[in-house]
């Protein structure tokens, strides 16, 4: 274990990315003076754990990639065993559409609810929604950071990170104190893909970080799913390109769960009045604005508002930017 911790600490000191021991004189000198037990104690005192590559608990899927990290720093109350559970990487654009946000949230909820671990990168947009969805379902989610384990990046997701740490794990290959840097995020993505048997892309532009995650997943022979997007939307250009190249289309949580050999999520039984049923049917057919629903159902604007709230509270529809969508 001490070897890997030495390696990780040397990488932090020299601001470099290391997978194996370098044959440099500088590293030899560093190794000779590095006090691994003391460093480990300091980590423990700050509430972090270190899981070395050589440790038996190290996730086998991640060990199997061609450049596995020397070890993982861990934060949160989740057991190390979580890293070995069947997991799905749920990734996508940071600047996503409201549709992308809703789909990410819903898939995160349904996949975590069915027992999969949802792995993502704590970024804005799709990543954050995937984590939130998993938490909503009371499931387990793991966030992989592209900076030191002690940092919450982006800062706006600090409270989300705290929530994830309650039941799940936050992991990083970087020791405390390392600043986020653009080149570290692709490296982070290989861990996201590496931890999971499959990767699911919700929305991605061309040349987006989410596509890097998919490339890495494909290189390691893992399955890649993509949510089909509108062909006119630049936000879906990347994910649609993946589909053209042969990724499996994901039209619902069931598609992913099947490949894991899991059953479909339990449908929720609802008791709805005739008006609410009519609205739900119309919304399930296609997302609609409130005004369109008024005309489609013949309800008054006031009555419709009440019905939509009822459906929203039941968790079967969501309203965003004036559009009512089946949730």
């Amino acid at each position, binding site marked *: 274990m001490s070897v890997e911790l030495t390696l990780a600490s040397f990488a932090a000191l020299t601001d470099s990315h290391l997978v194996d021991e370098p044959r440099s004189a500088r590293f030899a000198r560093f190794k000779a003076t590095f006090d691994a037990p003391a460093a480990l104690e300091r980590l423990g005192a700050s509430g972090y754990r270190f899981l070395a590559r050589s440790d038996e608990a190290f996730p086998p899927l991640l060990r199997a990639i061609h450049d596995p990290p020397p070890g993982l720093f861990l934060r949160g109350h989740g057991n190390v065993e979580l890293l070995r559970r069947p997991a799905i990487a749920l990734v996508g654009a940071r600047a996503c559409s409201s549709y992308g946000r809703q789909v990410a949230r819903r898939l995160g909820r349904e996949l975590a609810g069915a027992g999969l671990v949802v792995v993502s990168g704590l970024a804005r947009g799709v990543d954050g929604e995937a984590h939130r969805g998993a938490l909503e379902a009371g499931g387990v989610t793991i966030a992989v950071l592209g900076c030191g384990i002690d940092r919450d990046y982006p800062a706006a997701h600090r409270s989300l990170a705290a929530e994830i740490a309650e039941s799940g794990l936050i992991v990083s290959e970087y020791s405390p104190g390392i600043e986020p840097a653009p080149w570290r995020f692709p490296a982070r993505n290989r861990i996201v893909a590496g931890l999971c048997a499959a990767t699911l892309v919700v929305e991605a532009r061309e040349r987006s970080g989410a596509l890097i995650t998919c490339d890495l997943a494909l290189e390691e022979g893992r399955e890649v799913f993509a949510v089909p997007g509108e062909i006119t939307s630049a936000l879906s250009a990347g994910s649609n390109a993946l589909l053209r190249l042969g990724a499996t289309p994901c039209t619902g949580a069931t598609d992913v769960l099947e490949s894991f050999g899991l059953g479909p999520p339990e449908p929720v039984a609802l008791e709805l009045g005739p008006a609410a049923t009519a609205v739900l049917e119309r919304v399930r057919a296609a997302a609609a604005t409130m005004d369109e629903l008024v005309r489609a159902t013949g309800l008054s604007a006031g009555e419709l508002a009440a019905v939509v709230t009822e459906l929203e509270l039941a968790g079967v529809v969501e*309203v965003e*930017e004036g559009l009512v969508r089946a949730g």
Partner: protein
Amino acid sequence: MHLERGIPGFAIVGLADRACSEAKHRVRSGIMSALLEWPLDRRITVNLAPAGLRKEGSSFDLSIALAVLAASLQVPAERMAEHAAVGELALDGRIRPVRGAFAVAEGARSIGLERILCAPESAAEAELAGVEAIPVRHLGEAVSYLRGELRPEPVEPPDEADEPEPPDLADVRGQERARRALELAAAGGHNLLLAGPPGTGKTMLGRRLPGILPRLAPAEALEVTRIHSVAGLLVPERPLVSRPPFRAPHHSSSTAAIVGGGPGPRPGEASLAHRGVLLLDELPEFQRPTLEALRQPLEDGTIAIARAAGQALFPASFQLVATMNMCPCAGRGDPAAECSCSPQRLAAFRDKLSRALLDRFDLVVTVPRPRADELAAGPSEASQPVRARVVEARNRLRAQPPVRTEAASELLSRAVERLPLSARGRAKVARVACTAAALAGAQAVETEHVAEALAYRSPKELGT
């Protein structure tokens, strides 16, 4: 007013400002032009009492001129004492209307005067205060009247009928949800925020709120008229403001222009919208300090302004209607466009509107882009029937506001747990639900009213 022998001179004392001190020259020229006699060999001192209060403006000209004439025995002093006077003098002796004639007339009545001399343009305005206005066009006319040689024609009472109608709701096609929110806002006096992509008719909707509000009660009308009189906004043909005022300041307006201010504080747009509607178009484009300054009037209906020269407390109990895009590039919420805002830019945009300000909107409605078939639809309901419903709902709310049933309270509590809803948000929903019940003519606030009110809470995409 004092005339004495000595070196001829003319002094005005009593904290007069520049415009007020220049009255010397106007009064002198005016008296000479009216072929009256200027007391050449006298030293004249005019004291504007109380001496400690600042005086500003040209409205004292007529009083000063008449005082000089009375002191030099050219008009009977006892007749003078029965009249108040307000107006600015032109160099040729003509009398010009001034701002605040209504307030002056009210002041005159409060000290027991029953007649006021003023320019014909101000006469109708002054009569609203319950005094008899003597319209005089020229200083000579005022003197003849005081000498009892002339009786000026009384002013025609203004004709109410030709008042222009505010824009009508019939012009709005589709937009059922926003129309409903407008009706709720009118009935409950709620603040309304309309958010959505450009070109969806947010401003058009906002401008139609005054048309569905009830006319002002007589006491309210006088209150509003006083403010508009001080600001010089009254038109001679329609001196009494009987409809709720509507003000829509541009977003480049300064804080002082909106909440009031200046060295001798003047009422701002917020006070001019007292008992009416203040429309802030493109809310996030306003300067942040301006928006924050509106929080006080939104809370307690008044604006207190302190300046070195003095303090002022202006009434500012208005209904706020605001419009905004959902993001800086305005692409959000528009199916035909795509938002190209970076997360940082979006965050900065939302930060501009403090949560404290957003919390003061009881109703938040996202206005989607209407599709073509809506625009092709026939005209919708006009303002008149909507206003009738609003008046009825207001009467019900005043007589006996409906009370929440147990089931409705339970739904509200469940919603607070399930949705991100603050304590203030809960109170807003409760208020709107009460209005919805009153509009429906219901005895109590039922679950469906609470459910409807919940649909107008701040959506999460606005960051609250």
